[in-house]
């Protein structure tokens, strides 16, 4: 009887003119047990990115659910093309104390990217005060959260959940919604699964969830890895934090500034490039990046601000990413 009801519901959903989405996160069934425990149900795969986007120091849990029996094709260069029906789930949270990550956390929001027949749709679910459920809020929201950072210092964040339009502000290629994170470079890393540690690409391939894995397996370094080369860390940092907009098909294409790793070192990457419509974002200086001169580089100036009219990225943060700023500063200093 329950199965019958499920199929009727599916049929109803598919015949509606605009897709209706569950009002509650728990309605999807992504998680076993209590949703706040974030234990993936069968068929929901956890994954990690090597060099993730900075989002006001929030921690993130990531999951992918592909339709049963389906798989994704491997490609070495761009974000994987997941089949229709795929859902990508990302939960943002703050540990109460970063020094003791297992001693409680505050879940902020869970974003669901749903691959509908008409394209990807972004849906923000905001967790309630009781931390028992998250509810769909198309207009987003803001709330203040406090936590202790890795040094034990008390931090406060005015956390902003983007509205569904703002989601597209980053997740866009040629006007269409698209995922940003899961690519070979970002997922070619070892993850700790329930069964043990394994390379993510190899695990997906071995379990038939990925087809066509080849020997060509590029990888980003972690931009936080101080043993990696400065250039490689910068490539990874600017790619994930900036290139979703700053690419020839993205929302910031009007700037002519392209920060994908393949543009590294070019004028389009900002090297001695004049800004176009930076306004007061220019900070009174002339070029995006002046080799050897961090204090004369607009790119760093805009990373080092939290004024909404100046800062970059323009959404998704209210804090300055100090580690990112330090990285870019060191890099600009090092190049000629």
């Amino acid at each position: 009887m329950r199965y019958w009801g499920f199929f009727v519901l599916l049929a109803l959903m598919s015949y509606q003119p605009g897709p209706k989405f569950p009002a509650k996160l728990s309605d999807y069934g992504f998680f076993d047990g209590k949703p706040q425990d974030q234990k993936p149900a069968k068929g929901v795969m956890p994954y990690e990115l090597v060099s993730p986007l900075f989002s006001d120091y929030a921690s993130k849990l990531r999951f992918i659910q592909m339709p049963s029996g389906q798989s994704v094709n491997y490609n070495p260069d761009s974000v994987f093309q997941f089949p229709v029906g795929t859902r990508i789930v990302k939960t943002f949270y703050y540990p109460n104390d970063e020094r003791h990550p297992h001693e409680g956390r505050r879940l902020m929001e869970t974003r669901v990217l749903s691959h509908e027949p008409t394209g990807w749709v972004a849906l923000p679910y905001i967790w309630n005060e009781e931390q028992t459920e998250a509810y769909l809020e198309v207009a987003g929201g803001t709330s203040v959260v406090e936590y202790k950072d890795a040094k034990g210092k008390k931090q406060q964040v005015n956390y902003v959940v983007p509205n569904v339009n703002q989601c597209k502000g980053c997740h866009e290629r040629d006007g269409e919604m698209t995922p940003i994170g899961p690519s070979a470079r970002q997922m070619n890393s070892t993850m700790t699964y329930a069964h043990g540690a394994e390379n993510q690409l190899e695990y997906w391939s071995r379990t038939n969830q990925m087809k066509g894995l080849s020997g060509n397996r590029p990888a980003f370094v972690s931009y936080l890895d101080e043993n990696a080369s400065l250039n490689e860390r910068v490539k990874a940092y600017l790619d994930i934090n900036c290139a979703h907009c700053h690419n020839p098909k993205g929302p910031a294409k009007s700037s002519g500034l392209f920060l994908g790793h393949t543009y590294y070192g070019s004028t389009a990457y900002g090297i001695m490039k004049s800004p176009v419509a930076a306004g007061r974002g220019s900070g009174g200086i002339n070029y995006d990046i002046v080799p050897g001169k961090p204090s004369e580089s607009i790119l760093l100036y805009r990373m080092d601000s939290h004024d909404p009219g100046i800062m970059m990225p323009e959404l998704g943060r209210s804090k300055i990413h100090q580690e990112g700023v330090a990285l870019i500063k060191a890099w600009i200093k090092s190049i000629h």
Partner: protein
Amino acid sequence: MGQAPFEKALQTQFILASDGDVIELEEGNFQIAGSLSLEGKKKITIRGKGMDKTVLSFKNQTTGAEGIKITNCENIILEDLTVQDSKGDLIKTMHVKDIIFRRIKAEWTGGPKSQNGSYALYPVLCTNILIDSCVAIGASDAGIYVGQSQHIEVKNCTAYQNVAGIEIENSLYADVHHNHAYGNTGGILVFDLPDLIQKKGGFVKVHDNLIEENNLSNFAPKGNIVGKVPKGTGMLILATSHVDIYENKILNHRTVGVGIISYFMAEIAIKDKEYDPYPTAISVFNNTFERQLGRVPLEGRFAQIYRFKLRFGRNVPHVVYDGVLDTARCGTDGKYLGPHKICVHDNVNQSVANMDAEHDFKNVKRNPADLDCVQEYVKSNQF
């Protein structure tokens, strides 16, 4: 959670709007804390109760780089409202086909300040733009700025206390007429810049405008090209081709009425191989110029060129051309072939100078013969 009920309701309306909807805004002054965004819709009208009656104030904005952002839409009308004091641009529209701004006031209310946002009305990468009877005040770059777009009409608008009143940049087929640009640093600018997606602008008509007293000190943050515009500029054509400027009143500019310059004057290295840095095929005719005798103001790089190189004294010419030629478009006489010529004729109080910038301003010529010409299409009224 944080957003005021009005703001949340309005943003929700923007998100859930069905194609064909009219979103009506009540009279009143509404404080908005985050960018309002409209995305992926067709045939939406956003309508207030009138300029200065429905006011959206972003004075206490905490998130988002603009006041209102409209992206990937078709057939959008914004009308009868005022938007104020956003942290970045006031209204930005990107990738919109058929967009109308009508009776919109977009302003920074604290006077001209470098902390003001860049653009008041900012369509970019759009097609079929009408900006009609709008008012733009206080932009630290351009009040009305159309960038990398095609098929544009800007009419009956007023722009003051901006760095640039109206600017058309890397845009094709723009008709800018019956506007009033006064009290800015520069009145109306037509620019083509390198390193952009839409490479080439041009086919721009600027006519029947009142452009006066644009003598405000430049308050653009350094690093922006508009920061190089000298105060006292009526119009400036930078590296654009096919521009007709006619039947305007261009009055009381302390530096220049109409400047026509190549990108070399910006003194920025050009690395974009597809970029055309030369202004060509420009006609300036049937305009009225007025200016009282007096030296150009001493502010910025151009003032130095005026003072130390051009040495016009108090009798400063209304129209100035930098004289940097693209030899590929020249005939054997070393002058532009017919269709590429810069022509200045039949203006009231006309006075012209060629700066000879190419030879370090050595041979500055007043009323040079090679600018005294009439384009064939002007002769036959085909403009």
